[in-house]
Structure formats: structure tokens, C-alpha cells
């Protein structure tokens, strides 16, 4: 069953709108006609078996992956995959969306401070002093105020992921995309990251989270999207889907995950 968020939360503006998104790698169809709306200030969790295409949707949103067709709109910055767009349009779209990866993807040859500072200087044109002040503020918020002069490989996985979140937030995105942010972390370390994400959600950040953390999906997210075989098979209120999934593939998936 698909209950659209725009019906469940009338009166909220759409922040991210995806229409007819399709993507194949050679003969392998990865995404088929994906329609998705994410409302301002809401958290959308995406779950489903691996290979379902969840991460690909996320990667198409900021065009790390070029879709074959479909349109993407983030805060009015619209890109149609089938027509030409300029680099300026591409960078404008990416500025709206901050992305956090499973493997953090920090820059290992730069100090933590420079990891967070350099993008602000290059992308927003902030001065070094301004950028460092902002970085310090964010790192402190992440509980990493003393890590600025360290190099990423001296930090734990949970710390690295929070640095990556600070790096993305420093650019003041209007949407945050999380691609399995805790999948490469030990459970007790993942909690630190989930807490930060929960806090962000409480502050009203619009978020899309691809995750296997069912607890997070259930308690923090406003909208749950279940994908299988490159399609959205179920969508709606997280608690309803978790307790009473209607699609057989959702039932199988949830049984498998919750049994672990």
C-alpha cells in the first residue's frame, strides 16, 4: 500500500520532488519509474533488501549517478535527466543537499579542521577565519571540539562519521541525505551517530535516510519508503508499515530483519 506523504501531511511544502526516475547499468535495470516527494522538515527513511536501489535513488538526487530519465527538484532547483544542464545548475542542486556516506569519505590528507573548512572556503567563498569559526561551532556540537588538529585516521569510525556530518552541515544545506550512515560502524558507536541525526531531525532538518536501523526508521522518521527490485513497493506511516505491512515483499523483508 502506498500512502503519499502529501496526503498524510496536507499543507506542508515539498522539499524534494522526484518524478519518473529511471536508471539502468547496461541491461541491469536498477530504478524503474520512481516517484517520491519529501516534505519540508520531515524525515524519510528508505529500507529494503540490498540491491533494491535505495542508495541509487540517493545518489541520483545529487547526480553522483546520472539517471537515464526523470526529473529531480530540490528547493526549486530542477534538473531533467534527459535534457542538457549546466555545471552551474548541477552545483546549485548539490549545494542544497548535504550527503553522508557509509564510509565517511573524509579527505585523509587534511586535518579534521581543514576537512570541514576547505569546502566552505571553496564553495561558499567564506574567509578562512569565518569558516574556521563555523567549523569549530559544528565540531563542538558534534562533541568533537578538540579534534580539529587531528587527522581523520586518528579518529574512531563514529567520530569520522560525525566529522562528515559537520562537513556537510557547514555548507548549510536544506536537505541531508544519509546513505547507510551507520552500516560500517559497531552498534555502540553507531548510536553516537544516530543521536546526532535524531537531534538534527528535531531541529527540523529535512532528511532522507537509507538505513537498516529499524529502530531509527520507526521512531524518528515521518515517512517510510520500502523498495524492492528498483521500485517503491510500499510507503506510508512507519509504525503502520512495521506492524502491518501489506506487500508480501515487505513482510518477508521485515521478518528477516527483525529476526536478527
Amino acid at each position: 500500500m502506498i500512502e503519499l506523504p502529501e496526503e498524510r501531511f496536507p499543507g506542508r511544502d515539498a522539499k524534494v520532488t522526484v518524478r519518473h526516475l529511471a536508471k539502468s547499468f547496461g541491461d541491469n535495470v536498477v530504478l524503474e519509474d520512481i516517484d517520491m516527494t519529501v516534505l519540508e522538515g520531515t524525515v524519510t527513511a528508505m529500507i529494503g533488501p540490498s540491491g533494491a536501489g535505495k542508495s541509487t535513488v540517493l545518489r541520483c538526487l545529487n547526480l553522483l549517478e546520472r539517471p537515464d530519465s526523470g526529473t529531480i527538484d530540490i528547493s526549486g532547483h530542477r534538473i531533467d535527466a534527459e535534457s542538457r544542464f549546466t555545471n552551474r545548475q548541477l552545483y546549485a542542486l548539490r549545494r542544497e543537499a548535504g550527503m553522508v556516506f557509509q564510509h565517511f569519505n573524509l579527505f585523509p590528507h587534511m586535518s579534521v579542521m581543514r576537512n570541514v573548512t576547505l569546502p566552505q572556503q571553496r564553495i561558499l567563498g567564506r574567509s578562512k577565519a569565518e569558516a574556521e569559526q563555523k567549523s569549530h561551532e559544528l565540531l563542538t556540537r558534534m562533541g568533537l571540539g578538540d579534534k580539529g588538529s587531528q587527522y581523520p585516521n586518528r579518529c574512531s569510525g563514529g567520530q569520522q562519521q560525525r566529522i562528515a556530518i559537520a562537513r556537510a552541515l557547514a555548507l548549510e544545506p536544506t536537505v541531508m541525505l544519509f546513505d547507510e550512515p551507520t552500516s560500517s560502524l559497531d552498534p555502540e558507536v553507531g548510536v553516537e551517530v544516530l543521536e546526532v541525526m535524531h537531534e538534527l531531525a528535531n531541529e527540523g532538518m529535512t532528511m532522507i535516510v537509507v538505513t537498516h536501523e529499524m529502530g531509527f526508521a520507526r521512531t524518528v522518521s515521518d515517512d517510510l519508503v520500502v523498495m524492492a527490485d528498483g521500485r517503491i513497493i510500499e510507503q506510508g506511516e512507519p509504525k503502520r508499515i512495521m506492524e502491518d505491512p501489506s506487500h508480501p515483499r515487505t513482510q518477508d523483508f521485515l521478518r528477516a530483519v527483525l529476526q536478527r
Partner: protein
Amino acid sequence: MTFFTDAVQFLPALLGGLRVSLALTGLSLLFGLPLATLLSFGTRSANKPVRWVSIAFVEVGRGAPALVMLQFMYFGLPTAGLTLSALASATLALTWTTAAYCAEYLRGGLSAVPRGEVEGSMALGMTRWDTLRYIVIPQGWRIALPSLMGFAVILFQMTSLAYTVAVPELMSQAYTNATMSFKYMTLFVLAGSIYASISIPATWLSVLVEKRLARHL
């Protein structure tokens, strides 16, 4: 004791030759490394003519022995109407060899930069050029640096081939003095020791640099 008295006698000429050897090494690196940087991108370029010209340049530079390149530049080019001085033709030949080998080391270094870091940068909204400049090139150079330093040592030894085109470098000084004095043994032991006294510490240095650079990776 004759070895030492001979050594004292020949040393100034040999050290004069060493200066030429080092200058030839330095010039070849000075021109070769920027060219290598361009070629490392050229061989991966999406533009076909650029890619093919770059690949041809690299393959010739790596495929032809340095001695052949030297002879070609000094004896070959004049028949085509281009006459270069001994030092200029040796510099040209060794620059080509340097550019070709170093382009491959750099290409290897650049492609060893993890894809995730490039994506991390692009996802932030950094431009393609900024991503190259701040993420890919600094790390690619770091990865390639030990190989580049190793090549510089080999290049320094390779300059001895320039004696065949009358560049007055270390080997040619040793050879000339040997034929005049018949003290071949003394002169080649001396020349070999001088090459080694530069090459061995330089190799140690490259190992040290490699260890230091690996700290953050």
C-alpha cells in the same frame, strides 16, 4: 698509496663532471615533471587526439632505451636540419624519458586515490577542478612520490650515458682522464664511488619520505 695521490689529482676534474651530471639530472626533472603531469592527464583524456598523442609520447619514451634517444637527438636530428648542442640534446632526450616514466607513476598515483573521496568532494558541490586540485592531485603526488624519487636516482645514473654524445659529465671526465693516464682502475672506482655516494643516500631519503607520507593514509 698511489691510489690516494691519484685520487687527489683526478678529483677536481671528476667533481667538475659531477656538477654537469647533477645539472643534467636537474634540468631533465625540471622540464620532465611538468610534462609528466600533463601527460598523466592526457593519457586519460576523453579527447581522442589528445589521448593518442599522449599515449604515443609515453610509449616511445618508455619503449626506446635512453641511449637510443640520446644518439637520435645528437646525431639523428642534424640530418633533419636541427642541430643541438651536446647538453641541449642530452637534456631533450632525458626529459622525454623522464616525462614518459613519471607520467606513468603519476597516472598510477592519481588513479589510486579512492573513488569515495572524489565522490565526497563532488557531493559537497566542489567543482571538478577544485576536486582535482585539492583532493586528487595532492594525494596522487603523495602516492607517486617514492617512485618518482626512485626514478630520479636512476635518472642521475642514466646521465652517464651522455658521455656518448660528448657531454662533459662525470663518466666522460673519468673516461677521458683514464685514456690519457691509463689509470682506468683508479678512475672508474672513483667515478663509481661518486655515483654511489649520491645515489645511496638519495635512496634512503626516498624510503624515509615514503614512511613519513604513509602516516595519514
